């Protein structure tokens, strides 16, 4: 049953290996956005430490959203999506495979790089740990939720901007709990409760998003 999940995952990772620039564009978008804030706000470390959780999370949100447009678009254009829709397995599994590959390509590098950027903001060790953990838990949820928007706007003119309009409001809970956990940790309250909520939200997205995305893909590919 999960063969098809791994089939898609493998194919997409192979494709990403052949075209590595896509990985780096999203990653460096994240790096640039995070680095822009000190330039706009000033290099005062106390302020930076205060805004860091929000900055990191908003940047992660934007980076994840930016990468969404390509999630199904190439498959749609070259006809591979039609074959995916005709696979004799549940479409949600295929969608899950695509989203997993997408997250490994665009989400994970950003998560792994965030501790380094955390140093730019003079975050203490434990806060960086929590930041890493929240991004690790939260960005898959972002990819899952985002896949719904990507499927709905598939092939539309101006799809990129439209995706942000549809998806960003849905990202808000993840933003609140992701940034909230880091902030709670930094202020000494401990981010456990937030992390728990973040995990719950990820699970909910794992259940709902592939179904909604599958339905949307069937509608959009017609």
């Amino acid at each position: 049953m999960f063969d098809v999940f791994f089939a898609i995952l493998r194919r997409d990772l192979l494709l990403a290996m052949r075209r590595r620039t896509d990985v780096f564009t999203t990653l460096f978008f994240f790096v640039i956005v995070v680095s822009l804030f000190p330039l706009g706000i000033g290099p005062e470390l106390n302020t930076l430490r205060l805004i860091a959780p929000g900055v990191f999370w908003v940047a992660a949100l934007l980076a994840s959203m930016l990468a969404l447009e390509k999630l199904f678009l190439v498959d749609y254009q070259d006809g591979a999506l039609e074959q995916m829709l005709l696979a004799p397995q549940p479409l949600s599994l295929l969608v899950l495979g695509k989203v997993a590959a997408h997250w490994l390509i665009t989400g994970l590098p950003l998560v792994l790089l965030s501790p380094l950027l955390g140093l730019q903001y003079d975050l203490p060790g434990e806060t960086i740990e929590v930041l890493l953990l929240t991004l690790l838990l939260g960005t898959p949820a972002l990819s899952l939720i985002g896949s719904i928007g990507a499927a709905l706007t598939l092939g539309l003119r101006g799809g990129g901007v439209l995706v942000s309009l549809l998806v960003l409001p849905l990202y808000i809970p993840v933003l609140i709990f992701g940034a909230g956990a880091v902030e709670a940790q930094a202020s000494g309250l401990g981010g456990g409760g937030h992390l728990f909520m973040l995990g719950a939200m990820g699970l909910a997205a794992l259940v709902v998003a592939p179904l909604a995305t599958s339905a949307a893909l069937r509608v959009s590919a017609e």
Partner: protein
Amino acid sequence: MLEVVNLQCTRGDRRLFSGVAFQLEPGELLHLHGHNGSGKTTLMRALCGLVTPTQGEIRWKGAPIRRQREEYHAELLYLGHKNGIKDDLTGVENLRAACRLAGTPISEKEAWAVLEKLGLRGHEDLPSRVLSQGQQKRVALARLLVSRAPLWLLDEPFVGLDAAAVELLQSVVRDHVEEGGLVVLTTHQEVALTSGRVKRLRLGWKKDGHV
């Protein structure tokens, strides 16, 4: 086996066709005719379940295809206009990925053998982006040689192929029909079959008076 009842499809506001009905049994080939824009491709996509018809029903083995999507897809092979070839993958990788997706994985050796049969020898491990249009089409058609699906839906399979490839494809289709397969295809070419029945369906004739 495949039964189409009173089918109607629309595109935007325009009704493409209505009242389409036919039956296809094992060992039969249906040749779809029709001028450009008569809805051949839409009918093909409706037969796959990619397009939801506005009226009517498509049945496979007596049950509506909507109710048995996964089972139906396991017995179906569709090749459309866009051949689903990934530019950055080689011919072998493309073929193997497509087969894995269809639930019938093949070994690397098999993939090499099939592509060689299709005249792609020496091109198997080049990225598909450097292949010509016709060669890419051949990679897509390679799936027919390894497929075990009884129902083939082929939308303009001969476009872009040279004479030798057309000949080969015709024999593949012929073999499939003779072995009791079902084929629906759209093409402007005549398909020669030695046995098995060829049915014809012309779309759009009501409007413009073709027979």
